[in-house]
């Protein structure tokens, strides 16, 4: 047994308000550069929806992740090593920029330079790839809050088997937000797909990274990742991905997306696992058993035998101690309310989600139920297949049971605390009904509702005794006085600057801001 520590994130979806703060702060920190203009290491999708890039969850089309061969062994869905090398000149599974969106900017100068006019001036959109004017048909968050759902609601792969029951009446439609980052998988198919061996998983903390000096731009990681969370920088011709903000995490600080999360939905901690068992777990025959097997892979950090084994595998002592306080271990294993996104891709993803109760509750009030009565909620969970089965397709390979259990636990926690508020004591049988102890319900409440900062983020610092130095090394390189990307990559300056706006002047020869004059009588 080789014990390793790995960072993990859990997001409680009920609390996500879809504000995109995480996406914008991440973008400002990491991908506000030429070449990564279309890249969002963190993005927030409205579900149901086809996502970013379009239809990324449809692995029959993109061939990401792993599958089992006839002998029940793991193989990359896109094919073996020889097949890959034969196709190295053109990767058939690679998405193009149109599957994400064509990055654009506006010629803002035309607003300030416009001559006096009766009409409001317009800044037209220009592609950042060609410099030409484009007609916007798709962009980041195009589907936000179900925009365009009437056209694409059923194209969401998680709708499979539910088409019959779905109605698009305004009252019955449901939506939820799904923030996504790289999953820092335990069995990463991106790493396995990289022909150059430039991608790697760090032994100390499980963060998956791209070695920029070794990447040769073969692009197989991009197509190999079923979550499409490796991106191709089209200027440097190299792969880039979410780094789990390792420069921050090594110093004990949460990732930028977590730090700035308005809804406080994110939890970061470490789990201990047995490196030697990973492949076997990923090859679990029935995909619906994958979650249980994955949970079993997380070792109990309070078990003296595990602690001893971890010491032998030289996991630092403070890391073992941090694993014992890990909020993610509690949510995923102890309380059993969190699930990985699409476990059936077999990459053993390490960003898990607490399924949202809100779609069920919303639907209940439409049906005339009382969403405050636990019996009603339990009945609804059982009978309203739509949100539950949808969540199951998203989080548990279609198995509704674990999702139901989690939703019941969330309901029980609410009812328990409500009763406690009103009568001074919670109903302990509620806890027993959902298979938890009252103190576990209390813990769940503390984590989800109170969510104190240092209980949401239990991040041991890296052992390199030069703490702080990392952050200055790895900041974004677009800063005043930094390297000039245009010159570095030999692009014409005009590639990044929008075409000159019409600089026509006023009669008196001065350029005027567009202040409207009273029309001549």
């Amino acid at each position, binding site marked *: 047994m080789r014990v390793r520590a790995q960072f993990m994130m859990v997001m409680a979806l009920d609390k996500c308000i879809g504000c995109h703060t995480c996406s914008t702060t991440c973008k400002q920190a990491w991908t506000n550069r030429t070449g990564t203009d279309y890249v969002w290491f963190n993005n927030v999708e409205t579900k149901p929806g086809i996502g970013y890039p379009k239809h990324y969850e449809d692995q029959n089309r993109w061939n990401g992740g792993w599958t089992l061969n006839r002998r029940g062994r793991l193989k990359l869905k896109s094919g073996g090593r020889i097949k890959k090398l034969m196709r190295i000149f053109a990767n058939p599974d690679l998405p193009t920029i149109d599957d994400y969106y064509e990055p654009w900017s506006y010629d803002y100068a035309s607003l300030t330079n416009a001559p006096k006019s009766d009409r409001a001036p317009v800044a037209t959109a220009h592609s950042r790839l060609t410099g030409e004017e484009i007609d916007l048909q798709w962009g980041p968050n195009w589907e936000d809050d179900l925009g365009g759902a009437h056209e694409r609601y059923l194209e969401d792969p998680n709708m499979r088997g539910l088409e019959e029951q779905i109605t698009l009446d305004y009252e019955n439609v449901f939506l939820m937000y799904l923030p996504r980052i790289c999953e820092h998988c335990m069995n990463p198919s991106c790493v396995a797909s990289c022909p150059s061996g430039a991608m790697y998983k760090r032994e100390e903390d499980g963060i998956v990274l791209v070695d920029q000096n070794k990447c040769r731009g073969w692009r197989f990681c991009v197509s190999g990742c079923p979550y499409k969370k490796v991106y191709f920088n089209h200027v440097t*011709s190299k792969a880039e991905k979410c780094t789990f903000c390792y420069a921050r995490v090594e110093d004990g600080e949460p990732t930028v997306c977590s730090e700035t999360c308005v809804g406080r939905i994110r939890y970061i901690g470490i789990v201990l696992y047995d490196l030697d068992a990973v492949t076997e777990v990923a090859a679990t025959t029935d995909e619906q058993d994958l979650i249980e097997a994955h949970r079993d892979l997380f070792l109990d950090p309070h078990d003296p035998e595990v602690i001893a084994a971890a010491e032998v595998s030289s996991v630092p002592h403070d890391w073992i101690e941090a694993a014992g306080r890990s909020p993610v271990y509690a949510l995923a294993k102890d309380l059993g309310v969190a699930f990985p996104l699409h476990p059936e891709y077999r990459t053993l993803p390490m960003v898990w989600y607490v399924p949202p109760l809100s779609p069920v509750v919303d639907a209940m009030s439409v049906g005339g139920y009382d969403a405050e009565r636990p019996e009603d909620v339990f009945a609804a969970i059982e009978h309203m297949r739509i949100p539950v089965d949808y969540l199951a397709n998203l989080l548990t390979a279609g198995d509704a049971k674990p999702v139901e259990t989690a939703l019941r636990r969330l309901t029980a926690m609410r009812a328990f605390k409500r009763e406690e508020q009103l009568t001074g004591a919670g109903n302990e049988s509620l806890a027993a009904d959902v298979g938890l102890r009252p103190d576990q319900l209390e813990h769940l409440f503390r984590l989800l509702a109170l969510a104190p900062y240092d209980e949401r983020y239990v991040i041991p610092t890296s052992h390199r005794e030069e703490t702080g130095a990392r952050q200055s090394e790895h900041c974004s390189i677009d800063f005043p006085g930094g390297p000039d990307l245009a010159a570095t990559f030999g692009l014409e300056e005009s590639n990044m600057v929008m075409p000159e706006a019409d600089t026509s002047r006023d009669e008196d020869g001065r350029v005027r801001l567009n202040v409207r004059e009273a029309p001549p009588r």
Partner: protein
Amino acid sequence: MNNVSMPDILLFLVLPYLAMATFVIGHIWRYRYDKFGWVSRSSEIYEKRWLELGAPLFHYGALMVIAGHMLGIIIPESFTEALGISEAQYTLVAQVGGVTGLVICLSGMVILLLRRVLNGRVKRATTRIDVAAMSMLWLMVILGTLTTVGYNVLGPGYNYRPSVAVWWRSIMLFQPDVSALNGVPEIYRIHITVAWLFLAMYPFTRFVHSWSAPATYLTRPYVVYRHREPSPPHTPGVGKRWRTIGRD
């Protein structure tokens, strides 16, 4: 060295060694100072349909053509004769193989060139060094086509193995024998000269990705684990001037 003209010495003795020196030193320099820029610079993300057609044609065709050149100039005529392969038989095989490779390679090149010119995104991402490299490649391949198809298949025919191949081996073995080229048709001479220039340019273009053919992928374990780097990797020459060479 007596019956050799001065231009011949310049073009077939001085130029080859200069080109070889540039080729070797250029690669070492590029690897050392611009490892970050050592990439394929793929444009597949911009446009895929034509690339999926053109790129494999070009690459597989080019590999065939390179293999054909290697066989032709490395293996001495005496060796194939000793194996009982006559000059006529050899020429037939070489011409069939050569023309096949050429047709595949050229059709790929035509597709890729049209794509690069007609697709706004790909065109915009083309740098000056790309234009130079591609012009040189096109020139070299057209001249090669003229020698193989124009001169050999359709024209009078010429056996380059006792002359050009002998000279090439003499250059490689550092015992240059320029006189072996006496009487070689002009078209061959021009093709050879352009090829040396192409090689001299090679380390500074995107062609360097050819050396990174990832053969180790066949044997390494799927998932790569690494320790956290003890210190940031030291990259010499990160200044602007170093960085621009090889890309523009």
